[in-house]
């Protein structure tokens, strides 16, 4: 197949070079897909230790038309933007080296998401490069757009945290979360586990599940708390899909808002957001957010319903965990950091009908 030609107009004509660490993984593969279709980037290197020298298409069959082979992460060259999609702990180990090679590191792991070393002590096993924490900007643009221009260390958010924060943000901004009890019940697909799954993620064991995998104490609680100043009761379930994270938030505010109040709050927060669609009731089959609608895209669907009997607001948020929840969010943040058009390279439509992407 002929390589796809795209013009660079969305980025004002300039083209930056980009490399991807962890390019044989799920999030890394999505970075390659999005960058290949992005008018403002040219991929320089894509790393994999295991698959070094093999074609990118040997791992990601959707990218067979790319003329690119994996490089060893030890052979990285200087580049305009370095995207890193390695497991937790790798970025903090190599951050010095990487920042020597590039002006802009966009890290998809949890390594630079929290503000302080003490949070890493509490939620993770500490941090080995805490000096860089101050430089890092949390990527979720709906939350931190203002800080992203010119950022040189960007920490892309966690997928479950992204869905949850987007589902709560309009209530947060409207002051409805103050003192509220919040339960977050999340349903996620198998790609969240990354390419290197264990026995529990084999097809016979993982198919058809509604499996509580993080009943309590999920680490993304830390990110959510940092973003919204609020402790949430979080539980995640694995369900039978590959892509997708769906967060249902059950909120008990001091006073129950009306549907009109909520429409106003959502319009206020998301009215101008290019990647957020409010879906709250209506007619037809798709009345509330559903992850399969946004699979493959950088879009988030967010919705709500009011339960006056129980003094409850329910919000629904649906994203593709490997796009809006990681690689797409990272590219979106890089667009903002470099001053590109915000939606450059991220204008894919989802599919309908579609099964279980």
């Amino acid at each position: 197949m002929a390589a796809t030609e795209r013009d660079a107009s969305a980025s004002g004509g300039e083209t930056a070079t980009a490399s991807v660490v962890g390019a044989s993984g799920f999030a890394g593969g999505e970075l390659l897909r999005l960058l290949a279709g992005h008018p403002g980037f040219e991929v320089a290197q894509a790393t994999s230790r295991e698959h070094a020298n093999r074609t990118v298409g040997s791992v990601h069959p959707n990218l067979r038309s790319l003329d690119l082979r994996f490089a060893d992460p030890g052979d990285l060259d200087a580049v305009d933007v370095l995207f890193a999609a390695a497991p937790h702990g790798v970025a903090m180990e190599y951050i010095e080296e990487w920042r020597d090679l590039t002006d802009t590191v966009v890290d998809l792991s949890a390594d630079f998401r929290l503000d302080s070393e003490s949070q890493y002590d509490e939620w993770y096993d500490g941090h080995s490069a805490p000096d860089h924490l101050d430089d890092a900007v949390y990527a979720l643009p709906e939350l931190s757009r203002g800080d992203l221009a010119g950022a040189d260390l960007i920490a892309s958010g966690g997928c479950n945290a992204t869905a949850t924060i987007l589902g709560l943000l309009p209530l947060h901004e409207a002051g409805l979360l103050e003192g509220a009890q919040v339960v977050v019940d999340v349903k996620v697909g198998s790609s969240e586990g990354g390419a290197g799954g264990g026995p529990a993620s084999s097809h016979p064991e993982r198919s058809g599940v509604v499996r509580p995998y993080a009943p309590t104490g999920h680490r993304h609680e830390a990110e959510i708390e940092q973003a919204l100043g609020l402790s949430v009761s979080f539980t995640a379930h694995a369900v039978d899909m590959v892509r997708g994270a769906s967060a249902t938030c059950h909120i008990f505010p001091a006073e129950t808002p009306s549907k009109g109040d909520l429409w106003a709050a959502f319009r206020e927060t998301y009215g101008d957001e290019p990647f957020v669609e409010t879906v709250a009731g209506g007619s037809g089959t798709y009345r509330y957010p559903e992850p399969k609608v946004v699979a493959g895209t950088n879009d988030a669907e967010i919705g709500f319903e009011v339960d006056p009997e129980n003094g409850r607001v329910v919000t629904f948020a649906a994203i593709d965990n490997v796009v809006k929840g990681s690689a797409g969010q990272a590219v979106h943040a890089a667009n903002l950091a470099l001053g590109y058009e915000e939606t450059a390279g991220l204008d894919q439509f989802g599919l309908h009908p579609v099964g279980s992407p």
Partner: protein
Amino acid sequence: MTACTECGADVVLPDDLEVGEIVDCDTCGTELEVIETAPPSLDRAPELAEDWGE
């Protein structure tokens, strides 16, 4: 241009609409019934509840 009764957004109506026809609000998706045409006025259409067995 009329306000949606559910979410308050403006609904742009096709000009050949007749009383009784159904349009959906393109913001919130609610089905709206055309009550009058000049000036246009809308109301939430009676909903078919999804009937799950259980």
